[in-house]
């Protein structure tokens, strides 16, 4: 065990049962208290931004949808909004309403998922099971409206692909009634359950000024009293037509985030009811042209598109070069904006709080993996690599590893740590 710094170093991740996706935290602990935390990300770099460049805008909708299995609609909406801006298309109101509807249903299922995960992280498995059971109401609605539980694929450039039938509106309203009952139950019990309060109150606190300084977005920012919400600040889809409140809290701890997220589910139900009742008649797409004809019209330009994903503000930057494939797409997912607050709020909290503090920002770790930047200064004091340095570093690393004598795998009794630690320089 390394004892260079005060106390013990505990590695959390990249593989750890509390992390559903790979990320690495190195915690310096003194007894049960964390004195320092370091974070490494990008274990799951999938090269999506590069892959996007080889596909047409139409194909990219489905590719970008697969960045995340939870906020899939957020990514397609942000992307199609950007492309519509490039094409100067006016999305018809009915399509805007349907996008809003799916977006809010998605917000509900994402927050319910988080509630379950948070329950599991603090050892409250019953809450986890209940939240995920009730989440099925929304999942079934989504499947009925769009044809898939996860990747709805309802957005297309200039509108939506599927209409909302009257039967479906009835089903949605009935489903919302059931869900409202459940949310009332969660609002009443979860923040008032003493053991939940003990685990969440004053844990992982992000004060308002820290949230502002680190640009925390979404429920994390709102729970710290920063009322940022793209839906209000720069309304897209049908958000300027519907009434809803931005839920904020000023405590900044995990309890506040729980309260804010459950409150947002209630607001989402409110929005969905308005949409289902007031959806205007009209076209689904801005233009009747086949998709290929639209793609031929994309000018040389760039666009920034913002979307309030369940986890916070999602930004897509799209640069086109006049062909049917984009020249550059950059994606800033909300989790990236919230990571720094995690490292700050880990310091001084207990080891036992690590899972819930990490889960408290509702991290979507694989979505965040855009680029790997080594910042621990172990490669000659620099803070980042350029491409040549990265090559050199990679070659050196493999050379060094090649010199290590490999343990023989043949014969003898196997033991757990056989040749997996200690020898590496």
């Amino acid at each position: 065990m390394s004892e260079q710094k005060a106390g013990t170093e505990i590695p959390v991740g990249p593989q750890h049962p509390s992390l559903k996706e790979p990320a690495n935290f190195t915690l310096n602990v003194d007894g049960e208290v964390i004195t320092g935390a370091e974070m490494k990300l990008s274990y799951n770099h999938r090269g999506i931004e590069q892959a996007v460049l080889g596909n047409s805008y139409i194909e990219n909708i489905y590719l970008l949808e697969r960045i995340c299995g939870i906020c899939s609609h957020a990514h397609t909406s942000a992307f199609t909004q950007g492309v519509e801006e490039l094409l100067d298309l006016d999305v018809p109101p009915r399509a805007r309403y349907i996008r809003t509807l799916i977006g809010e249903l998605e917000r509900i299922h994402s927050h319910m998922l988080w509630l379950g995960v948070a329950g599991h992280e603090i050892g409250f498995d019953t809450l986890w099971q209940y939240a995920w059971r009730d989440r099925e109401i929304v999942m079934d609605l989504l499947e009925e409206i769009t044809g898939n539980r996860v990747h709805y694929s309802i957005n297309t450039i200039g509108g939506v692909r599927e209409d909302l039938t009257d039967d479906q509106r009835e089903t949605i309203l009935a489903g919302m009634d059931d869900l409202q009952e459940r949310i009332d139950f969660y609002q009443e019990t979860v923040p008032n359950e003493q053991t939940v309060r003990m685990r969440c109150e004053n844990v992982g606190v992000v004060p308002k000024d820290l949230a502002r300084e680190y640009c925390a977005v979404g429920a994390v920012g709102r729970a710290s009293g920063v009322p940022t919400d793209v839906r209000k600040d720069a309304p897209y889809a049908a958000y300027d037509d519907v009434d809803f409140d931005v839920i904020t809290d000023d405590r900044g701890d995990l309890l506040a985030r729980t309260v804010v997220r459950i409150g947002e589910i209630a607001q989402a139900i409110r929005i969905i009811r308005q949409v289902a009742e007031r959806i205007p008649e009209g076209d689904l797409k801005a233009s009747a042209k086949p998709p290929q004809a639209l793609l031929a019209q994309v000018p040389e330009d760039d666009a920034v598109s913002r979307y309030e994903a369940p986890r916070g503000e999602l930004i897509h930057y799209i640069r086109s070069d006049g062909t049917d494939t984009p020249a550059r797409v950059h994606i800033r997912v909300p989790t990236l904006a919230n990571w720094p607050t995690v490292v700050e709020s880990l310091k001084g909290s207990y080891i036992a709080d690590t899972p819930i503090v990490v889960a408290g920002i509702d991290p979507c770790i694989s979505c965040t993996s855009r680029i790997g930047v080594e910042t621990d200064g172990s490669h000659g004091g620099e803070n980042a690599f350029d491409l040549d340095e990265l090559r050199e570093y990679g070659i050196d690393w493999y050379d060094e590893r090649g010199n290590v004598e490999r343990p023989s795998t043949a014969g003898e009794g196997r033991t757990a740590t056989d040749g997996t630690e200690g020898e590496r320089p």
Partner: protein
Amino acid sequence: MSIPGKLIPEALKTLGKDRATVSYPKNKRTMPDRFRGAVEFEPEPCTGCGMCERHCAADAITVETDADGNVTWSYDVAKCMFCGQCEESCPTDAIVMGQKFELADSEKPSFEESYTFDR
């Protein structure tokens, strides 16, 4: 400090409820009409325009036309990601997203499907 156990009434009520889990292969649910399962192809209306291949983000569909004008339309369900864009792009409704979703198999060739026809 309040007494823990706000969930006790709900938990005891749950004891009387039917289980939420469904015994899957025994009780199959019917998929909604819009469900996007494996692609179903009808060679008759197909013109061999290749729009489905062009818009397929997963490269699951290939359309080839040889010198004699024979069109070969092939589809690999193992690559397909069931977005339904091919159905959307097809100008003649030759492609429809089916309802089939139990697609697992241990033989690779069984994922591939191919039609050759004259246009």
